[in-house]
């Protein structure tokens, strides 16, 4: 058991050290949601009126509405970038070091997912800190309650990223997948606009958004941030995390990538 613990803590520590050493990566991860918050939201607030919707008790400014979506956006990009680094690692070699560990491969991959998820949480809370200073201030207890919700979402998106990376032949193909995964997931969700607004525009778009896992992720975090519980979102995220992680581990095989590349 101790060997497993040493391994997990070693993988988490490595991700932490890489995070600390690569400050530009951290800053660029923060810039994206901050641009949305400080520029996009400022321009968009006049165009979009938010009715009183759960979990909010009153009318809210647009900046308050998009905070959970932007927090999840960080997790979405990090989850996908984590997979990008796995494709890179698989091609360039550092994944090979991980896989020469005598511990089970499933355990190693789950450790890697957990480690990248924990690092993503640091970025989310840094963003929430800046948003707090800017004036978007969810209740303190909500910030604490959002932690497990954010971790679950981070794990779900990292597992999805790993699953996608298993299907990618080589690094160059990843950009296309990003466009076909990140943007649809993000824009067809409740991150930027409530779904009833989408329903006004199009019924089928509304349903696409409603079944989008990312919508459930955003709502889970939104409710937790305001000290409310959303059992449907929790169930969807928990089930999908298990499914994505299970499939990602089952389909992970560097040999398949090599065979695809060679053929």
């Amino acid at each position, binding site marked *: 058991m101790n060997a497993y613990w040493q391994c997990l803590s070693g993988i988490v520590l490595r991700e932490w*050290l890489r995070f600390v*050493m690569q400050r530009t990566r951290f800053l660029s991860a923060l810039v994206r949601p901050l641009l949305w918050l400080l520029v996009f939201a400022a321009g968009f607030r006049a165009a979009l009126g938010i009715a009183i919707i759960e979990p909010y008790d009153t009318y809210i400014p647009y900046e308050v509405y998009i905070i959970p979506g932007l927090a999840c956006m960080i997790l979405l990009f990090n989850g996908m970038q984590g997979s990008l680094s796995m494709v890179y690692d698989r091609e360039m070699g550092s994944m090979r070091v991980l896989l*020469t560990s005598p511990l089970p491969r499933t355990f190693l991959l789950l450790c890697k997912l957990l480690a990248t998820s924990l690092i993503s949480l640091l970025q989310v809370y840094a963003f929430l800190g800046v948003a707090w200073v800017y004036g978007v201030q969810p209740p303190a207890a909500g910030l604490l309650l959002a932690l497990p919700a954010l971790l679950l979402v981070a794990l779900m998106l990292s597992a999805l990223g790993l699953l996608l990376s298993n299907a990618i032949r080589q690094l160059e193909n990843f950009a296309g997948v990003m466009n076909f995964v990140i943007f649809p997931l993000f824009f067809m969700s409740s991150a930027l606009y409530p779904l009833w607004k989408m329903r006004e525009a199009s019924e089928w778009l509304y349903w696409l958004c409603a079944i989008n896992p990312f919508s459930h992720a955003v709502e889970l975090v939104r409710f937790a941030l305001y000290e409310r519980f959303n059992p449907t979102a929790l169930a969807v995220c928990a089930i999908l995390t298990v499914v994505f992680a299970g499939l990602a581990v089952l389909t992970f095989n560097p040999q398949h990538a090599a065979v695809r590349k*060679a053929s």
Partner: protein
Amino acid sequence: MSALQVSDLSFAYGAREVLRGVSFSLAPSRFAALLGPNGAGKSTLIALLTRLYDLQKGEVHMGEHSLRQSPRPALRQMGVVFQQSTLDLDLSVEQNLRYHAALHGLARREVSERVALELDRQGLTERRRERVRALNGGHRRRVEIARALLHQPRLLLLDEASVGLDPASRLALNAHVRNLCRDQGISVLWATHLLDEVHPDDDLLILHQGRLVASGQAGDVSAEHDGGLDAAFRHLTTNGASR
């Protein structure tokens, strides 16, 4: 008992067969050179030995452990240095080593001791806190060797470890690994395509188009061909002759 026993190993990328019935064994404390032109199948063989790829046909034993049936104890017997550097460039030398120790589940109390010992052996103690990015190619390879030896394996695999080094660093690295082999009783499988890295008393394996076309002591293989190892290698890898 052999440090490494490979029996009838075959492997294909889809329809393309890259290893065909490869069998050899490596005795304890021996330096074996695995020689072959680019594309001979050396890296695929290393990928199979390190369990990066699953065995399709054939068996691999490391000491008494079968890689297929008991991969965990088998992998514990083995240290590996890959062709491309697998170090984290932004982490320090010591952080890279500690990460590897964690992957092998080594207890924290013994890690410091082993890290200090291996860094001392590789002459890197002074540079333990430096980022790997600041080291030259030869020193980076030494860090990778220190890392590969951290869990005290009985077998060390090096896949074209000298690629990218200048001639002096390349030969120094080769001599260094030979010393490890002699002083610590480790068996070494040194994959290369450079003939000057092979000594007459080494065990020699020549791989060509996925087949083992020669195996034996390097001096003996050379003696069978006029012109030494160079001629032997050219003959065996041009005509695909087998022995």
